[in-house]
C-alpha cells in the first residue's frame, strides 16, 4: 500500500509562526477532544504579525479526501511526498506528507515510519500512537498543516481523526559552524552564527543559561514568514526597548525578509543618516555580552547575523576582543580606533585643504619636498585625491567580490599601481599616495563593517567640502557630523550617549576600557532595570 504521489503547490500559504512545543520524547498521546484543542489554542497564543482569525477546523476525515485535497493544494510540486500506510499499533489507515529535502530522511524512516508500521502494542483506533519524535503538534486546520509542511515538518493524517499531527522532522541543508568572516577575533570564540534561527538562539543560550533570558517570537513576511526572535533578559532589559522593537517589527508588511539587513532598513530610527544605528554581529559571544549589558538581540531566521539594539556611536568602536585581552592594551586599541576613525574620515580632506588653501601652515622644508612632488602632477589636488580614493574603493570591492586566490592578485596589481606606477608616471604625487594608504589602513582597523562604510562615504563628503572651502569646509562637515551623532536615536536612546549627553560613568568602557572588576554596573546608556551586574570580584591584596 505504498503510494508515492507527486503533486503540486498552489500559492496558498499560511500566516503565523511555526509553533514550537517540546513534548515527551517517546510518548505521543493526544486525544482529539475539542475542548483540549481550544486549550492548546490558548496556550499557543504567540504574537502574530497580523491578526489571523481563529480558523474553524476544516480537515477532512477520510484518507482519499485528504489526498485529493493535498493534490489540489500542491500542484506542480514534485518534491511533495505523500506516503500511504497502515498503522500496526491501532490498525488505522494513515497518510504521511512532507517535502523532500526540507526533512530529515533518517528521522522519517526510523522514527515515524518504522514504529508506526512494525511496532505492535497500541490500543484501539483513536488512541495514542507511538513514534520516536520529540516534538509533535496536532492541527485541525489546513492553513496550519500547509504551513507545517512548508517549514519542513512531516504531517501525519490518520483516517477518521479530526486532527493531523505535525512531526518535527526538519532537516534542511545547512553549513557547519565556522569562524565569523567579518568579525574575526584573536582570543574570542571561533563560532559564528548560522542560517538557522533556532541554532543561533542556542548559540546565544550557551553563554547565558539563565531562566531570565526571554525570547519574543514574531513572524515577518507574508509570503515566506521568517521567525524573528527578540532575545532579552527580563530582569535587566528596559521594557521600552522591547516594546518599541516589537511594534516596529510588527509594522513590517513585506513579502519576505531575506536578511537581517533588510529588517534593519525597516526598523532603524533615521534611514537617511549615514551612520548605522543598529549593530549586526555574527558573533554569539558579542551578542551575549550585549544582552548582558541590557540590550536586545534580534535573531532573524535564515540570516547569519544578529541585530543588537539599542546601540550608541561609541559601541561601534568596541570589539569583543577588548574584553579578552588585558585592559591596558584594550584601552590603547580603543583610542587607536577612535584616532583611526578620524584619520579615515578627515585625512584626505585635510590634504586637499592644506595643499589648495592653507599651504602657509606647512613648514618651508616640507613645502619644498611637497612642491617638488606636486609640481609634476597635472591634476588639481581634489581631482587627484578623489581619483586615488576611488581607486582604493575599486580595489577594495574587487578584493571582496573575487575568490580568495584571485583576490591576492588584485592586491598585488593594485599595490603596484597605487604605490609606484602612478607616482613614476607623474600622475599622482607621493604625498597623496601616503595619504590614501594611510586612510585605507585606518579604515581597516575599525571593528564594525557598517561604520567603515559610513566613514567611506563621509570621507568623500568631507573631501568635497574641503575642496570648496578649505578648513572652513572641514569644520562645517565636522559640525554636521556632530549634529548627526547628538541628534540621532537608536531605538529611542540618544545615539551620542555617553558623550553627548555626557554620562561620565560610562566612559569607563568607551574611550578607555578599565579593568573588568571596576565595571560593577551595567552601562547607563542602556538604562537597564538592574544596574548592578557584579559585586567586588577582585581579591584583596596580601598585606605587606
Amino acid at each position, binding site marked *: 500500500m505504498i503510494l508515492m504521489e507527486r503533486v503540486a503547490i498552489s500559492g496558498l500559504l499560511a500566516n503565523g509562526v511555526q509553533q514550537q512545543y517540546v513534548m515527551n520524547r517517546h510518548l505521543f498521546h493526544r486525544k482529539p477532544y475539542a475542548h483540549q484543542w481550544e486549550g492548546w489554542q490558548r496556550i499557543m497564543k504567540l504574537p502574530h504579525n497580523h491578526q489571523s482569525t481563529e480558523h474553524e477546523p476544516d480537515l477532512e476525515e477520510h484518507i482519499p479526501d485528504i489526498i485529493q485535497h493535498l493534490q489540489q493544494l500542491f500542484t506542480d510540486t514534485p518534491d511533495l511526498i505523500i506516503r500511504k500506510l497502515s498503522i500496526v499499533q491501532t490498525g488505522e489507515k494513515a497518510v504521511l506528507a512532507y517535502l523532500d529535502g526540507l526533512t530529515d530522511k533518517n528521522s522519517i524512516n526510523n522514527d515515524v515510519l518504522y514504529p508506526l508500521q512494525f511496532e505492535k502494542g497500541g490500543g484501539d483506533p483513536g488512541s495514542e500512537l507511538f513514534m520516536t519524535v520529540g516534538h509533535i503538534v496536532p492541527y485541525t486546520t489546513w492553513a496550519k498543516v500547509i504551513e507545517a509542511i512548508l517549514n519542513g515538518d512531516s504531517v501525519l493524517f490518520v483516517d477518521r481523526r479530526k486532527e493531523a499531527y505535525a512531526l518535527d522532522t526538519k532537516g534542511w541543508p545547512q553549513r557547519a559552524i565556522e569562524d565569523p568572516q567579518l568579525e574575526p577575533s584573536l582570543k574570542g570564540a571561533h563560532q559564528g552564527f548560522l542560517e538557522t534561527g533556532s541554532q543561533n538562539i542556542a548559540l546565544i543560550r550557551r553563554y547565558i543559561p539563565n531562566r531570565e533570558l526571554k525570547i519574543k517570537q514574531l513572524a515577518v513576511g507574508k509570503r515566506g514568514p521568517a521567525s524573528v526572535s527578540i532575545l532579552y533578559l527580563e530582569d535587566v532589559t528596559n521594557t521600552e526597548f522591547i516594546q518599541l522593537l516589537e511594534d516596529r517589527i510588527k509594522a513590517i508588511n513585506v513579502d519576505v525578509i531575506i536578511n537581517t539587513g533588510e529588517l534593519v532598513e525597516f526598523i532603524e530610527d533615521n534611514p537617511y543618516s549615514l551612520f548605522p544605528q543598529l549593530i549586526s554581529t555574527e558573533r554569539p559571544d558579542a551578542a551575549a555580552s550585549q544582552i548582558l549589558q541590557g540590550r536586545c538581540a534580534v535573531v532573524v531566521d535564515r540570516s547569519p547575523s544578529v541585530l543588537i539594539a539599542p546601540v550608541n556611536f561609541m559601541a561601534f568602536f568596541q570589539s569583543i576582543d577588548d574584553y579578552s585581552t588585558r585592559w591596558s592594551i584594550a584601552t590603547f586599541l580603543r583610542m587607536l580606533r577612535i584616532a583611526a576613525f578620524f584619520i579615515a574620515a578627515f585625512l584626505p580632506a585635510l590634504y586637499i585643504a592644506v595643499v589648495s588653501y592653507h599651504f602657509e*601652515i606647512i613648514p618651508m622644508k616640507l613645502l619644498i619636498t611637497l612642491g617638488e612632488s606636486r609640481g609634476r602632477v597635472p591634476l588639481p589636488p581634489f581631482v587627484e585625491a578623489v581619483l586615488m580614493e576611488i581607486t582604493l574603493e575599486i580595489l577594495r570591492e574587487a578584493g571582496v567580490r573575487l575568490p580568495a586566490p584571485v583576490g591576492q592578485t588584485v592586491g598585488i596589481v593594485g599595490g603596484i599601481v597605487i604605490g609606484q606606477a602612478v607616482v613614476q608616471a607623474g600622475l599622482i604625487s607621493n604625498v597623496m599616495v601616503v595619504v590614501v594608504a594611510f586612510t585605507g589602513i585606518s579604515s581597516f582597523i575599525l571593528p564594525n563593517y557598517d561604520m567603515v562604510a559610513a566613514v567611506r562615504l563621509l570621507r568623500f563628503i568631507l573631501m568635497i567640502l574641503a575642496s570648496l572651502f578649505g578648513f572652513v569646509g572641514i*569644520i562645517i562637515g565636522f559640525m*554636521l557630523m556632530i549634529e548627526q551623532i547628538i541628534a540621532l536615536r537608536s531605538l529611542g536612546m540618544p545615539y551620542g550617549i555617553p558623550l553627548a549627553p555626557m554620562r561620565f560613568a560610562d566612559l569607563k568602557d568607551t574611550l578607555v576600557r578599565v579593568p573588568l572588576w571596576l565595571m560593577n554596573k551595567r552601562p547607563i546608556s542602556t538604562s537597564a532595570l538592574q544596574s548592578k551586574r557584579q559585586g567586588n570580584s577582585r581579591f584583596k591584596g596580601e598585606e605587606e
Partner: protein
Amino acid sequence: MKVHPGHEITSLQYIFLLTGVQVGVAVLSLPRKLAETAGTDGWISILVWWLVSMLASLIIVQIMKNSPRGSLPDWAAEVLGVWAGKTIALLLTLYFCVLLYDGLTKSVLITKTWLLPNTPAYVITVLLLLPTYMIARHGPRIVGRYCELIVYLSLWIPLVYLLPLKQAHFIHLLPVVKDGWQPILTGAKEMIYPTLGMAATFVLYPYLKHKEKATAAVIASSSLTMLTYLFMTLICLVYYSPDEIAEYNNPVISVLKSIEFRFIERIEVPFIAFYLTIFSLVWIPTMYLATFCSSWLFARKDIRGQLQILCILIALATYFYTPTLYQNLMMEKILIGFGLSVEYIFPLILLSFIVLYNRLRRRNC
C-alpha cells in the same frame, strides 16, 4: 508654549550653553579692550564685573522662579496680559537676533580675514548657517548637548595657550593697581559685551531638568566665563608689552602666532578653523532662542518654519549687505546698550515689579 517632555536640559548643558553664548566670539578682542582702558590691571576689571554679571544672572533666575512651566513671555501673558507677553517676546526676539547677527558676522569676518579671503561673505554665511539650522531645529536639548560636547572637545585649548608663556614677562602685571581704581572700574564696562547671553535663562529655565539647581548653575556658568576671560587676558597681558597689545585687533588669535612646531607653521590657521565650533556656541543657541521667541510671537508650535525664514533672511541680508569690521564694531556698541538694558536693567525692574506685585497680592488676600 508649554515645555514638551523629552526636551529637558541638564544643569551641565545649561552651564555650558550660557558660558558658550557669553564667551563665543567676545573673548577674542577682550584683552585688547581691557588693556586699552584699564592697562595691565584689566584683569581686575574682569573680577569686578564678574560679581555684577553674577548678580544680574541671579536676578534673572529669581524672576524665572515665578514661571517654572513657561518661558518669560508665557509668564507675562499669564500675569500681565497677552500684549505684555507679545511685547516681551518681540523684545527678546529682537535682542537674540541682534546677538545672533553680531556673532555670525564676527565669525564671518574673522573667517574671511584669516581663512578664506577670496570667498564672498554671503557664501561663508550660508555655509555657517547650514549646521546652525541642522542643530537648532532639534530644540533645546540637542542645542544643549551640542554646547556640552563642543566644550569638552575644546578642553585642550588652554594647554596650547600655556606655550606662549615661554616668552612671557610677568613683570608687566606689576605693580597691581598702578593707576588707582578709576581705570579698572572704567574698564569693567568693556565686560558688558562679553557677558551678554544670560537672557537665555528667560527661555531655557522651564526646560531645566533640575530647577532647584538653577542658581548654582548660573553661578557656575558666570564663574566659568570669568575664568576663561581671566586666563586669556592674563596670557595676553604677560605675553604682549602694555603698549603693543592695543595694536592687535584680536590678541587671543595673534598670541598663537608665536607658537611654532617643526611640522606646522602658522598654527593660528587651523586654530581659527577649530574656533568656528566655539564661535558657533554663540549663534546656534541664539538662533534657537530667537526663533523660539518669534514662534511664540506668532503662536506657532513648531520653530522650524521660523528657523527657515530667519536663515533665509540672514543669508539674503548678507548677500546684499555685508558689514565691514568697522560697522561690526558699531553694531557691537548698539548691542552693548541693548544688552545692558535687556540683561541688567530690565530684569532689575521686572524683579522689583514682581516683588511689589506679590506683596500687593498677598495684602489683598
